[in-house]
């Protein structure tokens, strides 16, 4: 790590003031992504602003029947919170599919949203990478791109967003609350992360002087019919090749509402409302699940080493929707996919 200054923020206003004053400063929460990237010299902040002691660590029901999750709630506390286990088990399951118990103890809710890609070229400072060094080129497009994106890519970057938690948050239609010098605002989850386009160096629409303060979940939690299926190279402690969050509201044998989001396939958690619309009113069966998968993957594009992800995602979508419909969600302990 190269030298940097350290300061502790006392409250949210203080944090915003400190980040506005130094354009090369960064917030640090759990540190599990930032310290790693600093050791690799990929992130080189002049100053770390420690937000880990801010009072943003509570989980509270909201007036409209939803849940407000402070940005500093550790991933493990969120996954095991009784209200999350009961009302948003899809979120609990996705969190427990990610990282390790130690890392989940450290990782914060806000930091999880802002974690950066695991593209190996992004980590390797001697190779060109538009995300790390804008204009230098993308080493992955013509290089080893097995873990890379199949949807929403650009000619400048084909990186994926690596989070599991965010895939569930996308499916659950969460909102992100942020505070900046001009005050507070809320963003729909889908508006938080960006596609790479011609500015892959920018992962999100969070402004440089804003802090994430909370995530809000609406009342509808799909607690009866959901599943999170993560497919990866080893059974645990590995990032997703493809992951699928599926949630259904069933009435009789028919689908009243559906949610479908994928991880490991794009620069952002990939929710597809057209596929969801196609499921609405249909029978919860293989034929309608297969149609939804085709819609979601219509524009998917494979590269030299990752074209397998398209068929993997198609089968994964059908399997996960089936698990959701049968109320037999994927266990994150017994790894057999049923």
């Amino acid at each position, binding site marked *: 790590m190269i030298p940097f200054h350290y300061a502790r923020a006392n409250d949210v206003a203080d944090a915003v003031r400190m980040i506005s004053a130094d354009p090369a400063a960064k917030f640090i929460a759990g540190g599990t992504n930032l*310290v790693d990237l600093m050791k690799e010299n*990929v992130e080189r902040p002049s100053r770390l602003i420690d937000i880990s002691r801010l009072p943003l660590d509570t989980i509270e029901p909201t007036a409209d029947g939803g849940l407000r999750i402070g940005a500093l709630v550790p991933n493990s506390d969120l996954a095991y919170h009784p209200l999350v286990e009961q009302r948003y088990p899809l979120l609990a399951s996705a969190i427990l599919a990610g990282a390790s118990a*130690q*890392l989940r103890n450290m990782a914060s809710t806000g930091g999880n949203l802002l974690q950066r890609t695991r593209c190996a070229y992004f980590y390797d400072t001697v190779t060109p990478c538009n995300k790390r060094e804008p204009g230098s080129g993308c080493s992955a497009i013509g290089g080893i791109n097995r873990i890379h994106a199949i949807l929403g890519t650009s000619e400048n970057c084909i990186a994926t967003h690596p989070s599991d938690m965010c895939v569930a948050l996308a499916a659950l239609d969460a909102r992100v609350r942020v505070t900046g010098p001009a005050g507070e605002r809320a963003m729909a989850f889908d508006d938080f992360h960006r596609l790479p386009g011609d500015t892959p160096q920018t992962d999100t629409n969070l402004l440089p002087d804003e802090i994430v303060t909370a995530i809000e979940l609406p009342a509808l939690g799909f607690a009866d019919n959901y599943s999170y299926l993560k497919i990866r190279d080893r059974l645990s402690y590995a990032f997703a090749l493809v992951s699928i969050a599926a949630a259904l509201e069933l009435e009789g044998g028919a689908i009243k509402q559906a949610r479908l989001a994928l991880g490991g396939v794009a620069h952002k958690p990939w929710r597809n409302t057209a596929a969801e619309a196609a499921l609405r009113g249909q029978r919860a069966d293989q034929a309608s699940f297969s149609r939804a998968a085709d819609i979601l993957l219509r524009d998917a594009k494979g590269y030299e080493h990752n074209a397998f992800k398209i068929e993997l995602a198609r089968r994964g979508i059908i399997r996960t929707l089936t698990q959701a419909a049968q109320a037999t969600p994927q266990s994150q*302990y017994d790894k057999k996919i049923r």
Partner: protein
Amino acid sequence: MAQRGAAQRSNDPVPLPGKIPISLVVNGVETALKVAPWTTLLDALRDNLELTGTKKGCDHGQCGACTVLVDGRRVNSCLTLAVMKDGARVTTVEGLATKDALHPLQQAFIDHDAFQCGYCTPGQLCSAAGLIAEGNAKTPDQIRELMSGNLCRCGAYPNIVAAIQQAMGTNS
């Protein structure tokens, strides 16, 4: 707008910040030390406090060898900045046993031969202590999954699971 990060830092050297005094309660002992902002808890324990039981495997959160308990929770000390833990209680493998008795997990690791080279063992022990305190593992599948953050290149996994079951009192 551009993202915060490397691109915005000028190439002028940052004047070296001084070391920051912090205090930690390490294995029950109140300890004052001075650390640079970039000193990890792992390096502070090993280099400043000469507690070399905690091991450095990968230094990137990928192996679990550096696992310690901070305020009772297991964490990767290689990704923890010491300065951020000012005031915390830290338990390392050196703090598990009492004066006259091994920790039940240490005894169980011996009983079940749950190691070969032993390099991962301090991390396995602290991680298992955290696992038991969390109380979320009841079955062997759950133990395996919730211990997956601790790699063992010698492959002692089956014996590690058996040792943890013994310490939890869940095997016959």
